[in-house]
């Protein structure tokens, strides 16, 4: 099996990097020269091989109790070791690709808003604010990273005291924790009001289904309200529920009804949806892996 990692600074590592680069460039130019008709087939082959790797990881027996530097005892373990190492390399590859794609995303964002500012289109000041924020956050982010990377361990320890923080770190904390996170929390808190307005529309009595929804929602809401649940319990206690723990009236406690609705109506419903989603995802993944859906909806 080909090893995925070499000792830092070794000749083998340098050769591996050179061969990988040469292969990468070779593959890139070969793809550029490939007739467009063949490209989908190449993509399908790579998709199949990548999927096959994950199927292999799932089906092949896992090496038990592997430690660093272990040599596989037999062929089965050798394949298991290789699959395990390859998976982490695939993850790295995926992360690198995502980073490139993120650059594409940021480029698109900057281009869109720069055009808007340069042509003074509608709401262009907002675009200007966005561009300034992107620039400042990027600059401060890298400055902070360089500062922390070049610090000695004792300086990092001293940074626990906020007054010892360098300006770059303080500024990054201010912008990220102090501003961005706080604004995100504000957005999140708006959801409470949206839930109220959505619930108002959903719970109006318009049909039999809406009425059932309204009734069960009221019971569940009251069951989760401490005060309502407490007064209801007192009423049940007075009806004989306290004297006999096995009395039928105890089944009418608000928390018991709420729990019944959640365990016997809500959870099975959600499980049924989950089954459907799981089977659908399996079928979708199979179609993608075997390239059965070639062209997708665009063809």
């Amino acid at each position, binding site marked *: 099996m080909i090893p995925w990692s070499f000792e830092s600074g070794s000749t083998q590592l340098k050769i591996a990097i050179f061969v990988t680069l040469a292969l990468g460039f070779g593959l890139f130019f070969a793809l550029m020269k490939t007739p467009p008709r063949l490209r989908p087939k190449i993509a399908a082959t790579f998709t199949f091989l990548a999927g096959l790797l994950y199927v292999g990881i799932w089906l092949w027996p896992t090496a038990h109790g592997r430690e660093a530097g272990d040599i596989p005892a037999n062929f089965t373990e050798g394949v298991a070791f290789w699959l395990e190492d390859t998976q982490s390399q695939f993850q790295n590859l995926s992360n690198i690709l995502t980073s490139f794609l993120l650059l594409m*995303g940021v480029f698109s964002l900057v281009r869109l808003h720069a055009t808007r500012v340069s042509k003074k289109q509608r709401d262009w000041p907002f675009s200007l604010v966005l561009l300034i924020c992107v620039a400042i956050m990027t600059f401060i982010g890298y400055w902070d990273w360089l500062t922390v990377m070049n610090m000695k361990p004792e300086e990092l320890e001293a940074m626990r005291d906020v007054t010892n923080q360098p300006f770059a770190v303080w500024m990054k904390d201010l912008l990220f924790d102090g501003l961005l996170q706080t604004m995100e929390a504000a957005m999140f808190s708006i959801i409470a009001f949206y839930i109220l307005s959505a619930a108002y*529309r959903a719970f109006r009595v318009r049909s039999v289904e809406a009425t059932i929804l309204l009734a069960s929602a009221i019971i569940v809401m009251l069951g989760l309200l401490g005060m309502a649940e407490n007064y209801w319990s007192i009423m049940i206690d007075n009806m004989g529920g306290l004297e006999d723990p096995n009395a039928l009236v105890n089944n009418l406690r608000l928390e018991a009804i709420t729990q019944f609705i959640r365990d016997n109506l809500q959870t099975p419903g959600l499980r049924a949806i*989950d089954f459907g989603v799981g089977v659908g995802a*399996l079928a979708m993944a*199979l179609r993608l892996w075997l390239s059965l859906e070639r062209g997708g909806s665009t063809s």
Partner: protein
Amino acid sequence: MQYFDTGKYQVLFVLVMVAFILINIFRAQNKDIFIRRIAGLNAIEDAVGRATEMGKPVLMVPGLGALNAISVQALNIFAHITRTAARFASPIRLCCGEAAVFAVAQEVIRDVYQSEGVPERMDGDSVRFVSDRQFAFAAGVSGIMLREQTAATFFMGEFFAESLIFAETANSIGAIQVASSTENTQTPFFIAACDYVLIGEEFYAASAYLTRKPVLVGSLVGQDWGKMLIASLVVLGIAMESSQRKGWIEQMENDPAAKTSMMRLFSPEPPDPATKPVRQKHPEEGEAQ
């Protein structure tokens, strides 16, 4: 001694499901298969048509998830919506919160306009990367909705807490909302706030419903076979669990103290003679006289 490794049941189960799907894909090549009506998908044409009449854009959001089967499925549905929009010359906005989805979405939308023979109608800025931060994305998309007054909105894919922000913002501007989330924690929010919702597997059935390609229709029937298998296993599980409980209940019947109120409801027992209250007798009629 255990002759069969029960840990392999899951592998067997998945292989059976895969076989169901592949067999039905093969079957569907030579046979017309019926698919029931899905209201949310029928509404696509109406929603896009309405947007065209109003001269306002159609907004599509594939959620916050990474590039996976869910986002690819969402893009498949959006490709169909974009095709309809391209025919009507209606502007579109597709907002992405994940860079990889953005890159694929750009290609898909460009392909659709080219396959419709109207590449000049594609606006280069119609597919946008907004932000990969959840609430920055929510704020950005809501801003686009409010500024551009979108007439039709489609939310399909992996949504989390931001789902209700989108749905309520779209409702506040009077846009038609068609939504679907594979996250069952968000589906109730969409049901409460949106006009049409694709629930659970309807999301995956959408491509088959819209394109009627044999591969997709066959795969859908394979999914249904899989669900029937799951339902059969659920029934089998209920029978096995009930049979196990029967023994447990029989044990409990010998111990009256352990009986629950529900057990007493269905198998009332005669009152204990020892608990019979002491009652006074009616005086004899003759004595009274």
